[in-house]
């Protein structure tokens, strides 16, 4: 009896009404992107779904389930005071490491397209790296806040542990292999370090150190070199290495200003591989034209800028770092994905958050937005933050 009361008390303690008004603009923009994504997944996946599974609604149905789960997750996250994540930061990083190792355990880990990125539990596959991204951001924000608040400026004390954690996690992710996520993790870490006030010299040093590592990784895996070649000279081999990116160009090109109309894409009919996942933005370009592309980029821009504004106006260091971190993750994913499909970066294999088909990605992205909403809700109109009171 008493125990249940304690639990109820704890739950009451965790879930609470945010004291201020959360940033509804972020919520609105996120839902818009989610709707656009769902429609585009339906448009781009029906033919493949019909052919592969005999059910044209296969991917749409799943995406709707994930969207439901994600919205629930977002709601829950928006009701949990973000300060609680500080307690979970270390647990999260340990859990991440465990999960990343478990991926390689036969029977648990699932291999798709030659990459071990998923853990299968009770019929559901779970992409570990999506969780790791969020856990690492929370951990970095927590650890650096601690140091900043204690006035710690020593490079070794302040940055050694986060750096080590990030490098180990990145190494494990590279092992899957998942080059795209690894790049995201490293860049997000650098952004947070930069924000936390590391000397630019160290940052540049670290970035310089990453160059030979990157070169080595590219040399060891032949396909990455091919991808870079294809990126630099796609038209040299339009039927081979350049095929994928050229098909994407043709999507954007045939879309023109106004697009060929929703559902009318021809490129999705087996010309463009993976039209509903990594390259969904190309189908948007074809069906909705430059107008559609502009709209989606503007929605993402609003989301990203609102995220940084939350970080900007949160006086609490942890909240600010966390908001900036989450926003940076989303921004990096958006920018890299769109840059890749438009041939500005070599092919990576990253999804477009909220829009591409992908269960874990969608749920975790929506959960991250939930955290952002919570942070925005803790701000008082006056400008002083509300978190100290709770603590």
């Amino acid at each position, binding site marked *: 009896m008493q125990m249940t009361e304690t639990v109820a008390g704890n739950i009451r303690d965790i879930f609470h009404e945010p004291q201020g008004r959360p940033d509804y603009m972020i919520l609105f923009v996120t839902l818009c992107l989610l709707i656009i994504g769902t429609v585009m997944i339906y448009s781009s996946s029906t*033919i493949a779904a019909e052919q592969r599974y005999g059910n044209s609604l296969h991917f749409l149905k799943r995406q709707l389930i994930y969207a439901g789960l994600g919205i629930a997750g977002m709601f829950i996250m928006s009701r949990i005071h973000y300060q609680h994540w500080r307690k979970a930061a270390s647990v999260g990083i340990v859990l991440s490491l465990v999960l990343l190792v478990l991926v390689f355990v036969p029977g648990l880990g699932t291999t798709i397209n030659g990459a071990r990125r998923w853990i299968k539990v009770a019929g559901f596959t779970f992409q570990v790296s999506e969780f790791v991204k969020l856990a690492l951001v929370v951990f970095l924000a927590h650890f650096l806040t601690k140091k*900043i*608040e204690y006035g710690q400026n020593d490079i070794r004390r302040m940055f050694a542990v986060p750096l080590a954690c990030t490098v180990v996690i990145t190494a494990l992710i590279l092992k899957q292999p998942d080059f795209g996520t690894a790049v995201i993790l490293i860049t997000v870490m650098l*952004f947070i370090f*930069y*924000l936390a*006030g590391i000397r630019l010299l160290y940052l540049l040093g670290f970035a310089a150190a990453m160059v030979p590592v990157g070169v080595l990784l590219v040399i060891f895996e032949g396909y990455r070199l091919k991808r870079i070649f294809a990126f630099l000279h796609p038209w040299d081999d339009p039927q081979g290495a350049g095929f994928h990116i050229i098909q994407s*160009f*043709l999507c*954007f*090109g*045939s*879309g*023109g*200003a106004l697009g060929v109309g929703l559902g*009318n894409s*021809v*490129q999705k*009919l*087996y*010309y463009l591989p993976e039209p509903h996942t990594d390259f969904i933005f190309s189908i948007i*370009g074809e069906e909705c*034209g*430059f107008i559609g*592309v*502009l709209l989606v*980029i503007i929605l*993402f*821009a609003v989301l*990203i*800028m609102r995220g*940084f504004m939350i*970080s*900007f106006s949160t006086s609490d*260091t942890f909240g*600010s770092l966390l908001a*900036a971190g989450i926003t*940076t993750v989303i*921004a990096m994913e958006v*920018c890299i994905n*769109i*840059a890749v499909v*438009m*041939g*500005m970066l070599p092919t990576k294999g990253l999804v477009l958050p909220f829009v591409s088909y992908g269960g874990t990605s969608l749920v975790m992205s929506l959960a991250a937005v939930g955290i952002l909403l919570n942070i925005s809700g803790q701000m008082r109109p006056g400008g002083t933050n509300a978190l100290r009171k709770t603590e």
Partner: protein
Amino acid sequence: MNRKEKKWYRFRLFTIAGFFSIFLCALVIRAFHLQIIKYESLKHYADEQQFCNILLPPERGLILDQNGQKLAATILADSVYVDPVMVKNREKTAEKIAYALDMKKADVMKKLSGPGRFSWIKRKITPPEAAAIKPLAADGVFLLQEPNRFYPQRELACHILGFVNIDSQGLEGLEFKYDNQLKGPLHTISWRRDAKGNRIYQAERAPVEQNDSVSNIILTIDSRIQFIAEQQLKDAVEANRAKGGSAIVMDPRTGEILALANYPFFNPNAFSKVSADERRNRAITDCFDPGSVFKPFVAAAALDDGVVKENDVFYCENGSYRVGDRVIHEAHMKRHQAMTLADIIKKSSNIGIAKVAQLLTKERFYEHLRELGFGEETGIDIPGEVPGFLRKPNTWRPVDFANMSFGQGISVTALQLATAMSAIANHGVMMKPHVVRAIVDSQGKVLEEFTPQVVRKVVSPVTAERVAVLMTSVVESQGGTGSRARITGVSVAGKTGTAQKFDFTEKAYSSQKVTASFMGFFPADEPQMVVLVIIDEPEINRWGGVAAAPTFKNISEQVLCRLDRNIEIKRVEKEAEVKKVTSRVARPDTADIMQAASTEIIPSYDPADTSLIPDFTGMSLRDVLALCRERGIKTRISGSGWAVNQEPEPGMPIDADRPCFILFGNAF
């Protein structure tokens, strides 16, 4: 964090936001570049990859006779093609196709393993074959409708029309000459397809309307006359066991060719099955020594120059006339004494005409022949014409000159003869022979009209008239060689010809191989139609007056009877008689007509009485049906062509319940 630190923190946050703003702007610029600036080239590239294009000829233009009857039309036929990429099991598919189309499996296999995504298997297949192919669509074997040339009248005018190959390219005749106008530019059939080659039906590219650039051709040929000429020629050639023949019917006033028939003829729908020999348009490609039909031209030249008159008397040397080191004889080894020019033409004296020619001198004779169009192409609009062969007068030996006066030692085409004859018939003015009256577009608007064209004045109108009189006596007078060409009711001018053929194996003129001919026009005083009949190497009747003249007569008679050509008939009261006779008797010859003409009873009923059954004989199916509808007669039709028999008889009252049986046939 103190104030200063906070400030720096916010600055750093600001730079990060700035970085992403720039990144996002770069993305928008890139999208603008791809979708707006490079739109054209990328769209083009995408279309290239998404569209499957096949070039197909458009529906080829029609060829119509002067009455609008279709001589060459286009129908759609199924063709089979394969997308080799979509074929799952080559062996099996090839077997199925080979079975359905009656092809060799190895041939099919070759086509299935070709490169690319399109390969014809068999073109223009039959409907049952198409039905057998249809279920193979899942294996990448498809049907495509292609326009296919079709000659609904089969052999009719085949040498004029020519034919086309499988890609609808004109190979001979008018199909060849007017290929560009008839075919129009190739048009593209294209459809969008997915990357696996499946057709996306809803995203079809609108076919480009190009029908306007296809022209139809209207001929001067009257298919009814053409049919008569062909049938009569065929009968004559077969009856005389000849090698072949030609017949030309021409309007001398305009140069329009109303019929140009050659035998043997062929079915252009299956041209590949016949030899080149049968496809040859003999009337314009084959040269021969004309023989005696040439004599009127000599007479015309002499009369025109004023060196002779009709009643001038020539001594015909009793049948053997020494010229240089040779001796000239008369045909049939006849022995003539003194003859007037009129007699020379009427009885066709070789010696007489040689003497007439001598009065002209070589040079004038040559000039006249050139003026009559010998030794050069007539310029008819059918390809393949040859100029014949006329040597320069300075190479003539005396005997050559004499021989040429009766048509030996000079090579002419049938068309040259007919054209020269037309010039005489047309008051001495030569018209350019032509078979195309107009080229019209698909809406019937005239694009190009071929109006009658004067070539030159050949002889004076008076001379022409005098020659016509001479030629009339050949047919109409007692003892003329062309008496078998006589037509009741119409005065005919004509000339027979029997020419020895040069035997190239013996290098001498053969006495056995001859060209029998008859050339003439009617009515003699106001000529409206020139008819020429050439029978090549007849074996039964070797003489032009026997082998060719009846054919001339039959063609002319039927043309006169069938067609309303406003030819004035001299003895009007006999008209109905003749009409009656020729329409009732299939393939009449002279004797039959004369006999029948005396026994036939002129109908006692009034043909204008609409309550009586009319006489359908000789009417086309269309006219019969129109008339029956008008009068409310129930009909039962059988056969095709023109009405040849009917039950009940003409003049019976119309009974609404009793149908009238009408038999149609092609033979008269």
